[in-house]
């Protein structure tokens, strides 16, 4: 029997190790898996790479994880969201490496990882300094830059409802990066509001099929 529901953070994060890349869902605070992300802080892991659109707000979630010093690198599009005290401090001290990526390229690189694409050419940022050092190619008269897949060892995502197969649905704009990161994570852990019976989710409206999800944890 398939039962992806786990009990507690230890089971949810089992196997995380030094140097892992974590894909952390959310756009600002909405759809961020606060409980899972903060649980990483308690683990004996270091040199993490955190992939997240923003760098967290205040002293919670991704901001708390970055502040803990467990992350060596942040890959993001827009680090300074509301109350960026942690990233401002880390940046001022040059205490973290930041790889800045156009938001759509960030998204597309994760999709490439999810879908077995070895790399792709995009126009976004091709004529900017963010493409410096990267392969450029003119296609149909327009400059493109070659971008590579961005894999995650873990995806830590937030969803609204789940069943024991790991099928997920989201709430409104809290969907954002979560379904994408679910696809791109080697081990995908979903923090959810609620578990429902198998078959209770409308098969026409499941956003993330369980094939992309390894563990489900109910957490507020």
């Amino acid at each position, binding site marked *: 029997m398939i039962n992806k529901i786990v009990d507690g953070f230890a089971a949810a994060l089992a196997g995380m190790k030094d140097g892992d890349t974590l894909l952390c869902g959310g*756009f600002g605070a909405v759809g961020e898996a606060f409980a899972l992300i903060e649980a990483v802080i308690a683990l004996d892991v270091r040199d993490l790479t955190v992939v997240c659109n923003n760098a967290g707000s205040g002293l919670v979630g991704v901001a708390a994880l970055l502040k803990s010093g467990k992350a060596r690198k942040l890959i993001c599009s827009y*680090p300074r969201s509301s109350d960026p005290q942690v990233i401002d401090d880390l940046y001022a001290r040059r205490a973290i490496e930041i790889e800045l990526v156009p938001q759509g390229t960030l998204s597309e690189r994760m999709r490439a990882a999810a879908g077995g694409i070895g790399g792709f050419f995009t126009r976004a*940022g091709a004529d900017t300094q963010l493409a410096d050092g990267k392969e450029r190619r003119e296609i149909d008269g327009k400059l493109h830059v070659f971008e590579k897949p961005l894999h995650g060892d873990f995806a830590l995502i937030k969803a609204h409802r789940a069943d024991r197969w790991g099928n997920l649905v989201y709430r*409104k*704009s809290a*969907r*954002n990066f979560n*379904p994408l990161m679910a696809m791109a994570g080697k081990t995908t852990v979903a923090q959810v509001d609620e578990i429902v019976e198998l078959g209770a989710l409308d098969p026409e409206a499941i956003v993330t099929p369980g094939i992309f999800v390894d563990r489900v944890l109910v957490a507020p």
Partner: protein
Amino acid sequence: MTPLTRRQMAWRAAQDLRDGQYVNLGIGMPTLVSDYLPPGREIVLHSENGILGMGGAPRPGEEDRDLINAGKGLATLLPGGAFFHHNDSFLMIRGGHIDVSIMGAYEVSASGDLANWATNVETLAPGVGGAMDLAAGAIEVRVLMEHNGKDGSKRIRQACTLPLTGKSCVTRVYTNLAVLDIARDGVVVREMIEGLDVEALQKLTDAKLALANDWKKLTPPAL
């Protein structure tokens, strides 16, 4: 001579949006454009976090923490709106499905180059967000910005001095003084506020200006 307020600038940008267009509003001043969509036109607002058909701010008591716009402010959804995930959202942007992107900027060049993500003096971590995707993918990119910097610096320039967001992408600029088109042969003044002439505007502008034959007075309502 009275420069436009931020709300008047947003109002002016809103007047150019046509019925049925799909429009992405950048964070900051462009977000205000949604308050002035001309009545009678259905304009579908796209939010990069995964919304089409976004409405304005919720009324008291109707707030939903899971429903925000690109600037992370609370938002609503209109009938006919839809939620989708981030990758689909940027597929819309990058694949040429967004009719109009309205963004803020630091500088725009006479050839339509856009600089709006990094200054040369970065004491804070720079962010690019979706600006480069919009610059590359939206069918039209329009800029909404003060004509000059707070220090008087010229922002509409023959060539940008700041790191670019995209080349040759801006088609129109709305400032607190004028509406300017980036045309094939340079910057054309379409509208100016009462009391301003093109010679005075040229002094505030690095790029060489041409005045359209049919230029108009820019006369927003009080806002």
